[in-house]
């Protein structure tokens, strides 16, 4: 056991193995953008307030600015780009477009990753539960209504109803 100046990590990002040497205090967000080139992971506040850097780490949606890159060693990470062929993600993306839930678009990757992760755990949520699930993701354009509408519509359509 030794104290390291640099940390060698091996992670799986969107299904591909990545080997890298990271600095001790480097965030997972910095690692994903600067070393992996995952620019779909947006950098908003860097302090855990805005949620736009949300990714799925070891099966859980997290704010990647609040994780040490070193802590991702031997873990699997999924960003929006890696989830594009996922059926549920495609339904969410189409619904976001249809409901005008994207304005400037900066919060959208985080919103989509959070929404997908949430609906996988809870396929039939109430509107209130959707709002609570998205409460860590800030949007400064839409007033949230259209985003909640878009997620609700996916829930309804999956349950066999009309959108």
């Amino acid at each position, binding site marked *: 056991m030794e104290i390291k100046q640099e940390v060698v990590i091996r992670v799986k990002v969107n299904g591909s193995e990545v080997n890298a040497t990271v600095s001790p205090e480097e965030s997972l967000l910095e690692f994903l953008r600067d070393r992996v080139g995952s620019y779909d992971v947006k950098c908003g506040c860097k302090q855990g307030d805005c949620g736009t850097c949300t990714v799925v780490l070891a099966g859980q949606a*997290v704010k990647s600015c609040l994780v040490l890159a070193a802590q991702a060693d031997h873990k699997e990470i999924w960003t929006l780009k890696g989830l594009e062929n996922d059926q549920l993600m495609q339904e969410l993306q189409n619904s976001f477009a249809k409901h005008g839930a994207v304005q400037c678009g900066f919060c959208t990757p985080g919103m989509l990753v959070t929404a997908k992760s949430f609906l996988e755990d809870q396929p039939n949520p109430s509107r209130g539960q959707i709002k609570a699930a998205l409460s860590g993701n800030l949007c400064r354009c839409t007033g949230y209504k259209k985003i909640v509408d878009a997620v609700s519509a996916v829930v309804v359509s999956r349950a066999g109803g009309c959108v």
Partner: protein
Amino acid sequence: MSSFTYIAPMTVEETLSILHKQGPMARVAAGCTNIMPEIVSKKITEGVLVDISGLDELRGIDVVDNKITVGALTTINQLIHSEVIEHRATVLWQACRQFADPLVRNRATLCGNVAKASPAADGVVPLLALEATVNVESLRTGKRELPIEEFLMGPGKTALKPDELILSVSFQAAQELLGFFIKFGLRKAMAISLINIAVVFELTGKTITQPRIALGSVAPTALRARQTEAFLRGREITPEVLSQAAELVKGEISPIGDLRASGEYRLHLAGVLLRRAIEAAMA
């Protein structure tokens, strides 16, 4: 070259020997929801990041007899999904459901919230009302069990020594008691509480016994309102008694004014929330 270094011990024993050697240079990192913003804002500019996220022995919730122990790596989200916490420490469960936001709750730990010692910490206030103990260990002094009231020493200050590691927090199950937690923030998620309050008490008929009242964001540390507790003990709960208690509680807190609210408003709020919390616990 970074002024930080990194080490990821795999056992508590290894961790303790690292903390012993590094002392104040060591920065224990688990969920990292506190430390990452501190690194980014340069509140912390150097140190050995001791990543304890691999210490599986500190994960989980144990119940022995009537005592509940929450390991240092247990996340807020795990507490929300625990039936033990929901039914036997409801006041803590309620606080966890209002803690930060769902993404942060996937990473943040209850013990990290205790270690950070924010006067507004939503995880600390219910632990005060549950009369929790903070269990710590070092190579030098072995294991210590500190009542949480003694553990909290000021804003960001605790009784934890630089070579000590928090192992867990524990408290007696409170399923026989009534309790309620209220967070009053400016928005529902990711809000620093203007005031938060937890009440835990026993009700015999309409008479309150063993009241415990804890408040956050009203003094340099979250605290117990002992005088108000003494006033309520053995009294029948009536609207008059609740108004008197609401007045009394203002006398034992010293809230500051800041960008979120004035001190006067927080005083007023403390009385209102005390009444609401007791009424909600009885409902």
